[in-house]
């Protein structure tokens, strides 16, 4: 395949006209932001994850920068969700799951014996594919993290809840009805409630597992705008099967392909305009996957 930039974009244009222009404009903005040098917050070295005999991730090495949006894309079953869940050790909840290699969070191997996954998860928030608010009031949903971490008495809880809801761009829609059930909100509002819940205890990293795939386009674009704001304070790692979304919102993109292999990891602009691996180019232009 050609490595010439104009050639690649021409090819994309011929398949889907609208999306390619979107990718181009957004990418040029993003690529400027990713120029500044940053520190690594999550790094994996030869990380392999298996479910019983089934290998889901093989030999992944990656360094994810702080205060950036890193998108993880790839076809179904390529291990992108597995990678995300191995960062906050949610994979521990699956009995057959085994992990090899190293995964460091701010320099500490999270699979070291002395690391308690409960403590780890208090510094890494997660937002799931389908909104999963607790069957509690909006207020109690957002206050959940602070309460279970025993921080509810140390902070002004009302203020913390308001700040989290503002941070999740939900405050204006739920102000005055904080005592109503979180389940009475619309799907998009529920997902922003889950984001508020995740950011309320002020984590370092927010993991998002296809956070817009269960939402309509309007609700999805609100979440995308929100991610753009969150990244000034948090590191966001987002799994998505939507390549336009990855191109729009991310600074870095990692491409996993079948077999749980990390094929390419680079600035989003480079991955989409000038991928080093021909399989990535095939995947991005829709030739397979």
């Amino acid at each position, binding site marked *: 395949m050609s490595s010439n930039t104009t050639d690649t974009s021409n090819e994309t244009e011929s398949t889907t006209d609208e999306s390619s222009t979107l990718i181009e404009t957004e990418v040029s903005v993003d690529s400027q932001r990713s120029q500044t040098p940053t520190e690594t917050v999550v790094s994996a070295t030869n990380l392999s994850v298996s479910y019983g005999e089934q290998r889901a991730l093989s030999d992944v090495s990656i360094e994810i920068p702080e205060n950036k949006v890193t998108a993880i894309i790839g076809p179904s079953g390529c291990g992108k969700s597995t990678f995300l869940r191995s960062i906050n050790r949610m994979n521990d909840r699956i009995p057959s799951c085994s992990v090899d290699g190293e995964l460091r969070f701010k320099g500490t191997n999270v699979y070291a014996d002395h690391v308690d996954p409960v*403590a*780890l998860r208090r510094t890494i928030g997660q937002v*799931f594919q*389908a909104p999963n608010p607790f*069957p509690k009031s909006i207020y109690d949903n957002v206050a*959940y993290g602070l309460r*279970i971490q025993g921080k509810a008495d140390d902070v002004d809880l009302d203020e913390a809840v308001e700040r989290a809801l503002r941070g999740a761009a939900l405050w204006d829609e739920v102000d005055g009805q904080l005592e109503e059930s979180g389940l*009475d909100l619309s799907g998009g509002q*529920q997902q922003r409630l889950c984001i508020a819940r995740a950011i309320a205890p002020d984590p370092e990293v927010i993991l998002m597992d296809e956070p817009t795939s269960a939402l309509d386009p309007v609700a999805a674009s609100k979440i995308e705008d929100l991610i753009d704001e969150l990244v000034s304070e948090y590191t966001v790692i987002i799994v998505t099967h939507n390549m336009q979304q990855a191109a729009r919102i991310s600074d870095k993109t990692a491409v996993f392909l079948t077999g749980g292999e990390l094929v390419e990891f680079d600035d989003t602009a480079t991955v989409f305009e000038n991928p080093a691996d021909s399989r990535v180019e095939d995947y991005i232009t829709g030739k397979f996957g």
Partner: protein
Amino acid sequence: MSTQRGDLFADIDLGREKLINRLFHGLLVAASLFGLVILVLLIADVIWESYQGLTTFNIDPVQFLTEPSSSRAERAGFGASIVASLWLMALTAVLAFAIAVGCAIYLVEYAPETRTTRLIEANLANLAGVPSIVYGLLVLALIVNDAGLGSVILAGAIALALLIVPIIIVASIEAIRAVPSSVRDGSYAMGATTWQTVRQVVLPQAMPGILTGTILALARAIGETAPLIMVGTMLHATRYPSGPLSSFSAMPTQIYNWTYQADRMFNGLAALGIVVLLVFLVVMYALAGYLRKKYETEGSITNV
């Protein structure tokens, strides 16, 4: 047109097949009605008997509901037995609920999936099928005699609790499993411990189902006679129980004791007692049904 159609199918004779079809239809309807008819007959008989009791023997309903029993039929009432049954239900509920729900939470949320836990879970159903008299014998030997507690309400409650613990465990496991795992994941991802997740997220959602199962199990316990006879009850509940350590005769045992008395008036009293017991059962089933209904409609409200 119609003749044409008649000609077309004329040589297909369905007479025999249709006859067999109708025959089995009738047989199956009869089989379904059998249970219903027996139930209606039973209730009609009990009501007729109690009506006879009220008219022939001039039983005063107020006296029947408030007075304790007596060896003289004209002075006997059901009040002390009703109170004894309420004591039994309260103690049984307290004893059984904590143990059963604790066991269910452990099996679903904490226990690793090993052969042992699977074996325990599979055998809970067998335990629920053990004849109730066996639990009565166990309590007679261990609690009444060895521990020297005597034939008191608490001993009866222990026998009934042993009887319904497996039933509540099975119902609770089902209710806890029905809580979506996505909500659990949400809690764990926030850095919650297992107990925090159970307490804050799982139990509130599973509680209606657990309560429904508990009430249905208690409805079974309130009618149990055999284990209480084993534990030992008074022939006539001649005084109101003063607490868990009083001797007693609960509703079903008092009814049973009345039925073999020589005085025919006791048969009328027994029939009235059965009506009271049935009213208790209907109320409990209605409460369980109400909870289940409420739970179902609440569960369906999701905007996702």
